[in-house]
């Protein structure tokens, strides 16, 4: 493409102006401010659209006219086109051959793959650029090569860009919004949930253990419960047996207490025989007596004898005791006599001394004793008193004497009179006492006591003593009376006791305590009477006699029997027949007990018995039962609790095992993993793809680089007058190598040489691009630093380039007007 004509309607300082160009090297000459830059900007604006109103400066708004823009005539593949951009109107492109309107995309196609900045970079250069040049790196160059669309790399670069863009939409390492990032966030959240849900497993394990434990415990408690139930039943059973047991105990202990020697069967037999006989005999005797009592003729006698016979046993016993009774009575009488005598004596004494009677009263007794004592003590006390008095006297006498003497003989002045007085006083006191004292006191002493004793107060000691002796005699008499009375009473008692045995016969023998003698006499009389009557009866009636004899016989037999029984008892170590009877009773009871004990034992099993023996009392057994009941209650409570516990645990387990969330979460997690994997792979392929493209392009351009450098070297050599003939690439740095082999870094070159190197590279690049870069170059006078010679060389090069490209060379160098070979010159005014 080359620009044939520029028509400016309004742009910068230009207004309705046109410029015609041809292919090849075009020189646009103009002094400062002639509009070189403006023209250049216009061309750029036409090709790549003008800058928007925002970039006011670059717009080059015309001042003089309202119209803005213009048209550009382009020749592409030998076909002329007109590009028009005017003010706000849409740009147009017209094929000038057939006036056909072309879409603007065609322009883009011609310009492709360069945009404005790329075009500027590649196809334009100016001094500013060259000045800014500090160093050249291969990567920059590479970039330029790439950007230059080496190898038709633009679509690839676009592809790479698109891939990277897609990749970024998918994932950014530190991003939050891209799809994969979000997916990862969700995944992490889900993983957390999974982890939390996983915590339920230890809970499950512990619940299982707990369940096992509880079940074992429950089994144990149930066994315990059974055991307790059996035990309680056993105890209840025992309790039911307790009464039996108690009976047994009692029977056994009863027999244990009894220390009776085992009575032999023989003894028992004998006893029974004897007792039976005795009973028979007694019956017989009783009937005989009955008979006897009915026998007597006269009613009085009958009554008497009858009575006597009825109570014959008693009477016979008592009769035997009659002598004793009579003796007792005799004694009583004697005693009574004594009493009388004592009383008489006493009476006599009291009559003799009536005034002493009062002294006998008990109150006075003590006083009398005191008095007596006092009297007997008189001589001794007097003696004592005397000695005491003597002692007493001693000190008073001495003190008085000393005082007196001292008072008299010691020269103490006034004080001696005092002493004399004191001495006199003491002595006087002593004397006074001596004279008046003892007798009266003695007398005074006794007076009191005499009165207390009931005696006349004015008695002398000896008189008093005499009185006292009389009193004592009285007292003795009194005592005698008393004791005699006592004895008599006692004896009366004895007699009366014996008489009382006859109370039962009060009808026939009234006895009376007051009349003991009479009573005893009556008793004796009774016996006499009975005897007489009986004798009479015996004599009068043979029946009576017979019966009497029978009675006697029977009585005798009874006695014998009683004797035998007594003997038997004695033989068995017992006191009497009663004892034997008791023993036999006891024995029989024992036997009965033993029998019932055996019976009871049969009812009680040995185990029960043994068990019952463990308990002392029913209360103990009851206590055991109560304890048992309590234990049962405890166990039952425990079981209830356990069952509740079990139910809870099982419910918890059920909840855990039915909780499907964990499985759901894990499947979701697996699904998410799939999703993420897909996204990650997509991202990875895109990144790899982009990298691949970049790498490939780099490699390819690197392949191209030597070519470009080679060409650049040629141009450089020409520009520098063959001073440098090689440009090399060492790592990333470019080296300029002289013909002599000296190497120079770009930085080491002089400014001009550097610029020339740059120019050479640019031109080499453009040449290398070949068909890819058939666009006009615009050079804005960049050779200010070149010397004459080198400028010539540069212009030469430009001409070379111009053979393939249109080169529009803006300059203010007058030499350019004439010295540029085959150039078309435009002059700006």
């Amino acid at each position, binding site marked *: 493409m080359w620009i044939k004509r520029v028509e400016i309607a309004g742009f910068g300082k230009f207004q309705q102006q046109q410029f015609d160009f041809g292919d090849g090297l075009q020189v646009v000459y103009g002094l400062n401010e002639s509009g070189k830059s403006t023209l250049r900007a216009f061309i750029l604006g036409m090709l790549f659209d003008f800058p928007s109103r925002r970039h006011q400066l670059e717009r080059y708004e015309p001042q003089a006219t309202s119209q803005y823009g213009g048209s550009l005539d382009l020749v592409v593949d030998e076909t002329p086109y007109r590009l028009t951009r005017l003010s706000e109107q849409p740009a147009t492109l017209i094929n000038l051959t057939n006036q056909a309107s072309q879409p603007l995309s065609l322009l883009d196609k011609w310009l492709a793959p360069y945009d404005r900045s790329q075009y500027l970079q590649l196809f334009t250069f100016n001094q500013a650029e060259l000045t800014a040049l500090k160093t050249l790196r291969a990567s920059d160059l590479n970039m330029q090569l790439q950007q230059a669309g080496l190898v038709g790399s633009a679509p690839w670069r676009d592809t790479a860009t698109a891939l990277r863009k897609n990749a970024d939409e998918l994932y950014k390492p530190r991003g939050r919004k891209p799809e994969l990032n979000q997916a990862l966030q969700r995944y992490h959240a889900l993983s957390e949930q999974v982890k939390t849900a996983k915590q339920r497993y230890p809970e499950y394990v512990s619940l299982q253990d707990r369940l096992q434990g509880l079940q074992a415990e429950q089994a144990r408690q149930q066994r315990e419960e059974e055991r307790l139930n059996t035990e309680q039943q056993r105890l209840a059973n025992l309790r039911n047996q307790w009464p039996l047991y108690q009976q047994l105990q009692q029977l056994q202990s009863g027999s244990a207490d009894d220390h009776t020697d085992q009575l032999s069967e023989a003894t028992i037999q004998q006893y029974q025989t004897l007792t039976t006989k005795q009973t028979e005999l007694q019956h017989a005797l009783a009937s005989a007596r009955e008979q006897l009592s009915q026998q007597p003729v006269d009613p009085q006698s009958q009554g008497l004898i009858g009575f006597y016979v009825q109570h014959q046993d008693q009477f016979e016993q008592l009769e035997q005791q009659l002598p004793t009774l009579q003796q007792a009575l005799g004694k009583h009488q004697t005693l009574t006599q004594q009493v009388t005598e004592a009383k008489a004596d006493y009476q006599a004494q009291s009559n003799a001394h009536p005034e002493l009677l009062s002294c006998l009263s008990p109150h006075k007794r003590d006083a009398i004793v005191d008095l007596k004592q006092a009297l007997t003590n008189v001589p001794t006390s007097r003696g004592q008193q005397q000695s005491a008095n003597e002692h007493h006297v001693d000190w008073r006498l001495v003190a008085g004497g000393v005082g007196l003497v001292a008072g008299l003989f010691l020269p103490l002045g006034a004080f001696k009179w005092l002493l004399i007085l004191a001495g006199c006083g003491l002595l006087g006191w002593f004397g006074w006492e001596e004279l008046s004292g003892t007798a009266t006191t003695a007398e005074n002493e006794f007076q009191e006591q005499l009165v207390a004793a009931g005696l006349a107060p004015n008695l002398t000691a000896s008189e008093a003593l005499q009185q006292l002796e009389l009193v004592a005699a009285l007292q003795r008499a009194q005592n005698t009376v008393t004791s005699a009375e006592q004895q008599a009473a006692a004896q009366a008692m004895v007699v009366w006791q014996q008489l009382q045995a006859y109370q039962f016969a009060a009808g026939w023998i009234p006895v009376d305590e007051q009349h003991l003698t009479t009573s005893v006499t009556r008793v004796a009389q009774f016996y006499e009477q009975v005897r007489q009557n009986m004798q009479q009866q015996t004599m009068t009636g043979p029946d009576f006699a017979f019966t009497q004899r029978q009675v006697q016989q029977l009585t005798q037999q009874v006695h014998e029997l009683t004797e035998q029984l007594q003997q038997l008892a004695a033989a068995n170590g017992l006191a009497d027949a009663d004892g034997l009877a008791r023993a036999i009773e006891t024995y029989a009871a024992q036997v009965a007990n033993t029998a019932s004990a055996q019976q009871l034992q049969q009812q009680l099993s040995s185990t029960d018995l043994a068990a019952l023996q463990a308990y002392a009392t029913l209360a103990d057994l009851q206590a055991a039962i109560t304890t048992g009941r309590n234990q049962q209650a405890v166990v039952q409570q425990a079981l209830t609790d356990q069952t509740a516990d079990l139910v809870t645990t099982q419910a918890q387990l059920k909840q855990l095992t039915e909780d499907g969330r964990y499985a759901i979460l894990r499947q979701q997690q697996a699904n998410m993993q799939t999703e993420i994997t897909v996204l990650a792979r997509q991202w990875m392929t895109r990144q790899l*793809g982009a990298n691949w493209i970049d790498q490939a392009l780099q*490699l390819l351009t690197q392949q191209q680089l030597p070519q470009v450098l080679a060409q650049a070297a040629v141009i450089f050599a020409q520009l520098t007058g063959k001073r440098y003939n090689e440009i090399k690439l060492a790592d990333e740095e470019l080296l300029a190598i002289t013909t002599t082999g000296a190497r120079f870094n770009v930085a080491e070159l002089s400014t001009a040489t550097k610029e020339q190197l740059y120019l050479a590279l640019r031109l080499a690049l453009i040449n290398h691009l070949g068909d890819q870069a058939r666009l006009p170059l615009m050079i804005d006078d960049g050779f200010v630093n070149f010397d004459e010679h080198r400028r010539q060389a540069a212009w030469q090069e430009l001409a070379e380039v111009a053979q393939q490209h249109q080169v529009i060379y803006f300059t203010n160098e007058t030499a350019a007007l004439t010295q540029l070979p085959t150039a078309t010159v435009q002059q700006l005014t």
Partner: protein
Amino acid sequence: MKFLHAADLHLDTPFQGLSGLTPALQERLITAPLMALTRLVKLAIAEHVDFVLLVGDLFDQQSQSVQAQAALMSALEQLNEAQIPVILSFGNHDFQPDLTNWHLPANVHAFGPQVTTVTVTTADQTRVAISGFSYAKRWVTDDLVATYPAKAQADYHIGTLHGQTGVAGDHYAPFSLSELLAKHYDYWALGHIHQRQVLNEQPPVIYSGNIQGRHRGETGPKGCLIVTSQADHTLQPVFHDLTSITWTDWTADLTGHWERQSLVQQLADQLTASMTTGYQLVTVSLPATVELGTSTELALTQGALLTQLQELAGEHWWPVAIEQVVTTDSVPLFGLNATTWQHAGQTVVTDAAVAELAGHLLDEDFLNTALLDDVSTTVWQQQVMQLLTDQYHLTTGVDDDVD
């Protein structure tokens, strides 16, 4: 004499490689392993087996899933009630350092870490000796076959082993087939390999395989073996299906050029026609004869095609992935510079580069596996190449897509 041989229940392992599941399907998948176990129990009872062998990996010890363990316990209980003994061992996934915490029902015998033998007497008085061991750690590197006892006096002697063939030092109770046969047992019940496999016909040395496939690699029917004694004292295993959800690889019957919409519809129709029973998780392959437009291809690689197909999922099938058979002809795009492109590819697409690019993505274990272990460099290069081609066409608008 009849028994059931199963292994690798993996009750708590989820299904891998799935996405975009409908809630109903998700529900179904979650309960699938437990359903399979229930069917196993029912089968054992229905067949009146004399005992059940479970040879390892019943669940994943690390997962600590309450449901899985509860389900296992429940199944063991049911077998206990039916009075069927269970002889089980633990494998490398459910290894048990301490067996004392397990409260197993009375009918269950679990092997300890040492090789032991237990004898079962069946109802008809046949005595069967069974030897085996459990994993106490994740790996068992010794060859334990030597410690298996010589053939016992019993009527039958069965060996159980969870592991794979190999040499001492390998991680999973390595053994060799000849070693097993040297014991002259009547049957070797193996576990650990999820694919049902017969290493030897008579006496049978068999992997029963797992009871439910969990990823696209585990295709085909899954279940257990019912082994019956024959008149000639040999044992004959018969496979029984335990699950209705199976993974399948399926290639579409297509040729020519296909565009997105019609392609999806066509695939759906073909799938519905060919999948008429059970429930298949299908990995769809497009044959080499199919030609796709660029945008269709991109939709394929980006998963949009799969999503569309999932919407048309049928009663008996569900698409898991759509893949294209990779053709080996080089991309003509690069023309003269093909070698440079290849060279660039080889520099750029390496494991190290992938690792570096992935960066923190590799913190996730599964991504580490997905990006580095599962995909080789060659596959990466192929995939990137494919993408470049598609993207280039898209960018340059070269393709004549009518979307």
